[in-house]
């Protein structure tokens, strides 16, 4: 049995099964936004690991191929993005403004909330880049003195929060344009937000991917200065 877990077979199988099950559950709930297949599948697998006492590194090594596919999938965002390029030119200013404001809001509020709720300096520094995609966030975290591994945890949690609550929240705000929804998701919930909003429409997904990429760049360039301003 243990030998099997050194191959990609069980990891991929169990992950895909969990996801497929949760997608079906979402369909039963008539596609309700808060019933998120990713979040539920994660919980399901965590329970499974706890019950079977399977060590996480063993599971992850076996499921690694799925994790690796995040790379090519991100590159694949180029296709819907290229489709949007003509329209993009008209929206340059709104997107630019939205990106700057959104990233500033994300970083400042994360730092502020973390500080006043009493988290340590290192934790606060780890939280600051939480709005951008994992590899970039980890790089920034290391640069400003946070813990990259903690940052990775925070980034993914942010992604799940954004993916689960995002579409519903945007509905409440009365935001229905795919371009705006996409950009907002990309800024606040990066990769997972993009993946989630792509299911809604590839157009929104394109803008989300763009926002994710540019947010990474913006935050990488501005966060060190911002952190210094907060006196951290």
């Amino acid at each position, binding site marked *: 049995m243990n030998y099997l877990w050194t191959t990609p077979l069980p990891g991929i199988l169990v992950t*895909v099964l*969990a*996801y497929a099950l949760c997608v079906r559950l979402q369909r039963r709930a008539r596609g309700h936004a808060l019933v998120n297949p*990713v979040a539920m*599948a*994660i919980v399901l*697998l965590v329970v499974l690991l706890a019950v079977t006492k399977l060590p*996480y590194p063993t599971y*992850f090594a076996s499921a690694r191929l*799925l*994790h690796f596919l*995040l*790379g*090519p*999938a*991100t*590159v*694949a*965002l*180029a*296709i819907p993005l*290229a489709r949007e390029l003509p329209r993009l030119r008209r929206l340059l*200013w*709104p997107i630019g403004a*939205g*990106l700057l404001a959104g*990233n500033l*809001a994300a970083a400042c509020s*994360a730092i502020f*909330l973390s500080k006043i*709720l009493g*988290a340590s300096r290192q934790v606060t520094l780890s939280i600051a880049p939480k709005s951008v*995609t*994992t590899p*970039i966030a980890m*790089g920034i975290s290391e640069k400003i003195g946070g*813990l990259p*591994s*903690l940052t990775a*945890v925070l980034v*993914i949690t*942010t992604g799940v*929060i954004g993916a689960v609550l995002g579409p519903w*929240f945007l509905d409440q*705000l009365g935001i229905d344009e795919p371009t*705006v929804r996409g*950009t*907002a*998701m990309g*800024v606040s919930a990066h*990769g*997972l937000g993009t*993946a*989630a909003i*792509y299911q809604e429409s*590839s157009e929104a*997904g394109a803008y989300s991917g763009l*926002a994710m*990429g540019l947010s990474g760049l913006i935050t990488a*360039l501005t966060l060190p200065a911002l952190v210094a301003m907060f006196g951290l």
Partner: protein
Amino acid sequence: MLVGVVVLFAFHFGADWFARRFHLPLSGPVLGMALLTGALALRGRTPDGLARVSNLLLKAMPLFFIPAGVGVMVLSEQFRAAWLPISAALLGSTLLAMATTAIVMKVVAKHLRRSAAKPRR
């Protein structure tokens, strides 16, 4: 479709190497996304096979986040120690970022539309 796979992987690996080699603040996949977008824009149209592979990958993308997500729940001592301020900061900040981006974007767009519609003297 095979060509599509090759293209995606080529851009991914190429960009990854480039980003690492030159210590760019961008990650490989994000840079690859940017470069491929540029390449497609220059080319003018997207090959069918590439479009189909991309759509497949993107439709499946949420699945790919799961292994890392499981790790989040299972690991991280620091998170458990400070989970309340952390969760509150994450929730509040994520929603604020979302709302700010959306609202600023709409306001600027509306402003531009208004000034474009103003009659010129």
